[in-house]
């Protein structure tokens, strides 16, 4: 009923705003006042000619009356058309279809929504089940250390004539391995216990960190207000931060970066510059004399922009993600190589800007800004750590000024069959 309720209410709202009586509007469009009353109280469907007549009488675009209701339905039908590879001509008939067969249109839209929800579930499960590096590494570490302990202990227990030198050496090995074993086992038990307690079973350290950051809304006033080195320790030691050692390691890196960025550019100064020149990352970076990568991170930290951020290392591994609705970033799987993030890695020093939209994800579009950040060299002839940084800002609604590049999340769940960058077949077809 959302469609009808919104449309009827909007007609009534517009009529009242224009000071028109219900009877006068009804007369103008050739229906009875009581019928218009039913429409305005959302008790009658409206579409086609009658809607056009009312819109003309109220001097508004028909979409203004259906916006948020039919527009949402038509948007979902558009997604269904895209998924079914319908021609543009067919896709354009969605409105006529919805007008003539509203029940079928709602049913198709509901199916499309369900497909999208299931795709997101498959995406998440596929990601988790295929790759749980923490669990795999932990088990390997545990068994390897157990093997060393067992062999060494058997030598010590079974060889009575063992020379003193060998005895000392094996005792030292045993001591080191038993400590390592205890630590690995403890860490694994902690991991499994957290998994049991978590709504999403099998949380990895990355997921722990993401959950913690999301709970803080990616905002840390202590660090933003110029906290010193101790402020990160204070945050990590705060009550309620119960994370695994691996997660603390990752989180420390994230928080140190926030602290450094905040010291270089406060959000207040950034907001003031945006008010003056708009959200233009390169111009802002020049104006405020900071590197573009830092500017992208600070823009992502500004709550009012609702932006997302993805950071990867030189190998392409995602090491930080602040997700944004409509753009999926796989946790462990390899990301879509078409993202500007990876193009930026191949062109250090440049800043790339592209409008992107992920296939099968509601056609939401984002302005992606990507660049590469090089660390300072610490010795000669040693590769310098590099990071790709990509900011994702939701594209302005209705803005068709830029071409949109269709990208995916990861090959396994991407519906784009003929992609030149495909690494493996998709399970979505």
């Amino acid at each position, binding site marked *: 009923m959302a469609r009808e309720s919104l449309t009827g209410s909007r007609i009534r709202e517009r009529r009242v705003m224009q000071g028109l009586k219900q009877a006068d509007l009804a007369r103008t469009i050739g229906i009875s006042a009581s019928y218009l009353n039913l429409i305005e109280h959302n008790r009658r469907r409206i579409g086609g000619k009658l809607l056009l007549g009312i819109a003309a009488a109220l001097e508004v675009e028909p979409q203004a009356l259906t916006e948020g209701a039919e527009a949402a339905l038509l948007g979902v039908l558009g997604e269904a058309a895209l998924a079914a590879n319908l021609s543009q001509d067919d896709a354009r008939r969605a409105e006529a279809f919805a007008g003539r067969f509203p029940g079928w249109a709602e049913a198709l839209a509901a199916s499309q929504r369900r497909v999208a929800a299931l795709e997101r579930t498959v995406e998440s499960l596929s990601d988790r089940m295929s790759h749980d590096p923490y669990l795999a590494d932990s088990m390997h570490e545990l068994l*390897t250390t157990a093997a060393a302990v067992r062999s060494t202990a058997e030598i010590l227990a*079974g060889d009575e004539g063992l020379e003193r030198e060998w005895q000392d050496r094996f005792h030292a090995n045993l001591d080191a391995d038993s400590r390592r074993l205890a630590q690995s086992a403890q860490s694994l038990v902690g991991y499994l216990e957290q998994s049991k307690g978590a709504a999403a079973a099998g949380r990895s350290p990355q997921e722990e960190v993401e959950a913690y950051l999301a709970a803080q809304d990616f905002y840390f006033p202590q660090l933003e207000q110029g906290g010193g080195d101790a402020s990160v320790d204070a945050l990590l030691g705060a009550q309620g931060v119960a994370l695994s050692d691996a997660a603390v390691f990752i989180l420390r890196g994230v928080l140190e970066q926030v602290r450094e960025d905040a010291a270089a550019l406060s959000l207040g100064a950034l907001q003031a510059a945006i008010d003056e020149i708009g959200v233009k990352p390169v111009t802002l970076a020049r104006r405020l004399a900071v590197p573009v990568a830092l500017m992208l991170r600070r823009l992502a930290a500004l709550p009012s922009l609702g932006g997302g951020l993805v950071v990867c290392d030189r190998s392409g591994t995602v090491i930080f993600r602040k997700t944004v609705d409509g753009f999926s970033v796989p946790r462990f799987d390899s990301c879509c190589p078409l993202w500007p993030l990876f193009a930026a890695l191949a062109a250090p020093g440049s800043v790339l800007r592209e409008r992107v939209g992920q296939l099968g994800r509601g056609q939401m579009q984002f302005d992606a800004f990507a660049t590469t950040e090089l660390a300072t060299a610490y010795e000669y002839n040693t590769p310098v750590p590099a990071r790709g940084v990509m900011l994702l800002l939701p594209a302005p609604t209705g803005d068709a000024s830029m071409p949109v590049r269709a990208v995916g999340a990861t090959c396994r769940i991407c519906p784009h069959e003929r992609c030149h960058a495909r690494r493996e077949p998709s399970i979505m077809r």
Partner: protein
Amino acid sequence: MTKHVVLVEDETNIAEAIRFLLSRDGWRVETLANGGSAAEVIRAAKPDLLILDVMLPGKTGFEIMAELRSDDTLAEMPVLMLTARGQARDREMALQAGVSRFMTKPFSNEEMLSTVRELTAGRVS
């Protein structure tokens, strides 16, 4: 003539324990901790036995096997593969890669010694 075994294992304490065991059993044990140059060393040494871990820095045990099995002069060399992963798939992969025996960690010293003796019975004196 002393029997020669090359042991490719990056876990130093396991390598040390195996080296001790086999040395006591009359073997000359050459240990390598990195898979990167292992195939080259093994080709040059042509040992009586190869003990190979799967998860190694540089190259995996499977990659090393792929290189060695294309060398006819090493076709007869017995290979004992060690791994912390004991799933059926790994065992199958090991056998397909041409290893003679597959042993999962943790193993007992007796198991190690008896396997080594079985694999080299009649081949080395």
